[in-house]
């Protein structure tokens, strides 16, 4: 029995080769996309899952009302350790972003991202440095480990695991440190670093006023997290009161515990955009599979005419409905299995491209555990969705009816098929309109005025802290001698996503939290930032280096100041005089709104000024770079021996990388969806016209022109398409609104993408259907009728 049914199935596949290929091919493409995205989603949502204590690890964060941060003061760790028996381990660590060279006899590296952590933090994160995790001695000792690449550069011939000495900073500094060995950060962990320094205790000298540390806790299983959160909150406040810190803002502050599982995609101190992107992708992939299933269902039913006779005869010969249902479901299952195998091959084929795009190390083999149970499940679900309905239709044919000879299987099921087609068209329209809208927004990001000029600005990496204008003045004098350098300045951050700190500032009795940026002369000139009122920092006013401040429009608005120039703003124990107001500029990209910001040359509460920026004449850029390189050790003697730089527009461009990535994915997924939908339409039109061959022939014999017949064949599809468009538009509007709302600066939604999507979908449909219809129309009616 099975053998004969298989033969029938295979011979049917062969006879309707194109349709079968579209069916199986479309489904495999969709499944391949699905497999890739499931692997990706799984990867993104399982950061640190390899950690044996994954479920019990939390970061302690602070909710400061205006924003949330994971930075906590260092004494908090000890206090938790002493007062919370339900916490098994308390770790603290601080990232050291100071970039400095390490030098050995064999080579030199610049180490940037060093994690300084205590022993327990290393234990919480399950770190396994070379030679095993060792407890440092006493309070002072730090155990240094470097990543593999650095170790290879510094000690290319190292075989043993003995510590090695390196020079730290410039050669002239004469500082040395022992390197214990290598450490490999798990790329699938939230904790990333180029090197690690492990000590017993950190920040001993720093009290509650120095929130510079991450505090991680590992609780004992079964701990009540809410209660622990409240307890730590009380401990924190008690500690701050004891040190008499910032009483004003205390009542607004609250401690929260954020589980390790959240940190990668949706940290409380941060945003959940990444999480949304990942979930959107997942939904996208499901939609693609749904479209492919609709195709499958529709094509199978549309071909029912050809199978009706078989069903009738089998019933006459003694088969019955359940048996036939099983037969058709088996047949569809086999096609799905084939699609799945093809899909796995496709997924493997496109894996490298996908990994490149998303910067992930996915592989079918590594993801096998999940796929092991997922793929059969998907297979069954797809078979069920795509197979059960057609199987029921096919097996339900009445033999007395179908064996009469002129049976039209389509008649009873046409509204369902039409409904499915409409759904499919709608999804396609959503994607077409989506592409258009995403494109416009990304375009906007590239062309819209950012409020400053990143072009021809060099950002020089440097270890020398230029916190004092008089020290930077000598540097400036030297570089300004180079032909082509227009201006030079230094600041604690460059526009391009780097976060600066924030502090409370008071104007006329109103306190507000402002971002502070510590600058030098010519900061606004170098970046081309426009002044709204007042003036910028100037050497003519001696007091500018002491107590002058410039605020941006948003800050002025925050205080409700109409004419801020000349007013006093107090913060960090200094009474600043506002000398100017600048126009807002988008230093954090388009996603974030401009923060209220204060710029000052003196800021005791600020951060080291390390980022040197030079505005260079475009025509002389290469000459300037060559000169800087040649003269660097003379210009900046205390710095390392290397001249290293970035272009500001490159740095700023990285802010849009995620959007670019999203665009690429969305674009690919959309094209796939539209492609599969068109493929389905193509096959559907092919079947429909072949089913109507006799009708077309008769109409032509009776005198219909080719055009009339083409119009007839197209019109039913065009109606469905119109309905699909009308259904899709509101959905597109909602989705686009939601996505655009994640940008502080965005394009306005116009009717253009909607209308365009309608026109494109209409064109696609007419071309697809006409391709098929023309063939049927051109057939010789006499031949067709004789054949019938």
């Amino acid at each position: 029995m099975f053998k004969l049914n298989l033969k029938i199935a295979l011979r049917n596949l062969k006879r309707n080769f194109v349709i079968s290929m579209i069916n199986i091919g479309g489904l495999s493409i969709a499944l391949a996309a699905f497999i890739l995205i499931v692997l990706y989603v799984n990867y993104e949502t399982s950061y640190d899952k390899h950690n044996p204590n994954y479920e019990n690890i939390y970061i302690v964060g602070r909710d400061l009302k205006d924003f949330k941060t994971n930075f906590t003061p260092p004494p908090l760790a000890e206090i938790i350790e002493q007062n919370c028996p339900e916490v098994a381990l308390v770790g603290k660590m601080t990232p050291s972003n100071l970039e400095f060279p390490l030098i050995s006899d064999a080579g030199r590296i610049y180490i940037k991202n060093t994690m300084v952590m205590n022993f327990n933090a290393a234990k919480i994160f399950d770190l396994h440095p070379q030679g095993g995790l060792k407890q440092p001695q006493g309070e002072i000792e730090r155990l240094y480990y470097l990543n593999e690449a650095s170790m290879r550069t510094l000690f290319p011939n190292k075989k043993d695991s003995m510590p090695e000495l390196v020079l730290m900073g410039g050669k002239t500094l004469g500082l040395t440190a022992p390197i214990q060995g290598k450490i490999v950060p798990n790329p699938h962990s939230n904790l990333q670093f180029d090197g690690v320094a492990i000590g017993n205790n950190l920040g001993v000298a720093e009290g509650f006023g120095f929130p510079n540390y991450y505090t991680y806790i590992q609780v004992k299983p079964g701990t009540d997290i809410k209660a622990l959160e409240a307890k730590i909150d009380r401990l924190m406040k008690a500690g701050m009161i004891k040190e008499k810190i910032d009483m004003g803002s205390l009542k607004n502050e609250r401690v929260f515990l954020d589980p390790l599982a959240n940190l990668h995609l949706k940290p409380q101190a941060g945003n959940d955009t990444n999480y949304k992107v990942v979930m959107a992708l997942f939904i996208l992939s499901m939609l693609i599979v749904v479209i492919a299933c609709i195709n499958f269902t529709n094509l199978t039913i549309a071909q029912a005419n050809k199978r009706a006779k078989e069903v009738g005869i089998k019933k006459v010969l003694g088969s019955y409905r359940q048996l036939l249902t099983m037969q058709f479901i088996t047949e569809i299952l086999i096609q799905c299995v084939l699609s799945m195998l093809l899909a796995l091959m496709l997924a493997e084929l496109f894996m490298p491209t996908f990994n490149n795009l998303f910067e992930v190390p996915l592989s079918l083999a590594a993801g096998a555990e999940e796929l092991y149970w997922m793929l059969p499940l998907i297979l069954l679900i797809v078979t069920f969705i795509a197979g059960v309905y057609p199987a029921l239709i096919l097996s339900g044919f009445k033999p007395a009816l179908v064996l009469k000879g002129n049976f039209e299987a389509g008649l009873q099921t046409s509204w369902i098929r039409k409904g499915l087609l409409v759904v499919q068209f709608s999804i396609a329209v959503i994607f077409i309109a989506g592409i258009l809208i995403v494109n416009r927004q990304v375009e906007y990001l590239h062309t819209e005025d950012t409020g400053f000029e990143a072009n021809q600005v060099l950002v020089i990496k440097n270890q020398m802290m230029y916190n004092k204008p008089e020290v930077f003045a000598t540097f400036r004098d030297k570089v300004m001698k180079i032909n082509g350098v227009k201006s030079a300045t230094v600041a604690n951050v460059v526009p391009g996503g780097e976060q600066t700190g924030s502090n409370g500032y008071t104007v006329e009795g109103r306190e507000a939290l402002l971002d502070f940026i510590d600058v030098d002369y010519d900061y606004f000139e170098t970046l081309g930032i426009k002044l709204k009122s007042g003036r910028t920092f100037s050497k003519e006013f001696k007091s500018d280096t002491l107590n002058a401040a410039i605020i941006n429009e948003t800050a002025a608005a925050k205080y409700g100041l109409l004419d801020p120039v000349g007013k006093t703003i107090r913060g960090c124990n200094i009474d600043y005089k506002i000398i100017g107001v600048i126009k807002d500029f988008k230093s954090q990209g388009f996603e974030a709104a401009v923060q209220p910001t204060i710029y000052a040359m003196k800021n005791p509460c600020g951060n080291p000024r390390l980022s040197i920026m030079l505005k260079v004449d475009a025509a002389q850029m290469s000459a300037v770079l060559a000169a800087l390189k040649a003269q660097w050790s003379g210009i900046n003697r205390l710095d390392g021996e290397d001249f290293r730089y970035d272009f500001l527009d490159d740095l700023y461009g990285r802010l849009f990388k995620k959007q670019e990535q999203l665009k690429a994915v969305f674009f690919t997924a959309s094209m796939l969806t539209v492609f599969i939908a068109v493929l389905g339409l193509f096959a559907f039109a092919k079947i429909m016209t072949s089913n109507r061959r006799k009708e077309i022939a008769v109409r032509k014999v009776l005198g219909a022109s080719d055009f009339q017949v083409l119009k007839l064949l197209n019109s039913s599809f065009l109606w469905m398409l119109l309905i699909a468009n009308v259904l899709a538009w509101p959905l597109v509007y909602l989705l686009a609104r939601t996505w655009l709302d994640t940008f502080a600066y965005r394009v306005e939604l116009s009717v253009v993408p909607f209308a365009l999507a309608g026109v494109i979908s209409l064109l696609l449909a007419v071309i697809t259907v006409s391709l098929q219809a023309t063939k049927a129309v051109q057939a010789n009616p006499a031949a067709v009728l004789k054949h019938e």
Partner: protein
Amino acid sequence: MIRIENLEKVYKTEEIETTALNGINLQVKEGEFVSIMGPSGCGKSTLLNVMGLLDKPESGSYKFMDTELLKLNDRERSNFRKANMGFVFQNFNLIDELTVFENIELPLIYNKVPAATRKAMVNEIIQRMNIVNRSGHFPQQLSGGQQQRVAVARALVTKPKLVLADEPTGNLDSSHGNEVMELLCELNEQGTTIVMVTHSSHDAGFSNRIINLKDGHVISEKINKGITEELI
């Protein structure tokens, strides 16, 4: 063998109701060859479909060797059908994707005949039907007469007690038609009961008895060739 009483069948469509069978009473004895004749649309095919359990009547009784068939459910009907009945259609109704051999083999598979026996049975009937050299062909590669012979072979291979034939010669020229009729007669002589619908009095002449239908009634019965048995 067959006793049909007061059979009624009504087709309901959106616009009208058609009474296709309107109180049919009819008996068929074992070993008989009965022809059913009548004008187009009088309900011949409907009657045959009901007798073949392919269609359900609204009311009446249909006894086959004292079993009431109208009370059976779907599964029992198909079981009964495959064990006792064979069909021949005007438009042959062979499965296009199966070869001649496979088409004939299909009912045996449904009757769960073991593979080895199956092969022997199919080969035997292929020989009898004179289509040996065609057994690997697909239906499209055969002439109409050859296709109908395959259809007859498929109806006979399970050795059914009753063969139902709906205009078996309707699509054939007279010489091919005669071949098929001779086959049916031969079969009848070996003891198979046959009920055949036909428009051709020539074909009806091969049978023992002719039943005339009009508007869903039996209007007359005629015994053929002087067969003497008493029939009601």
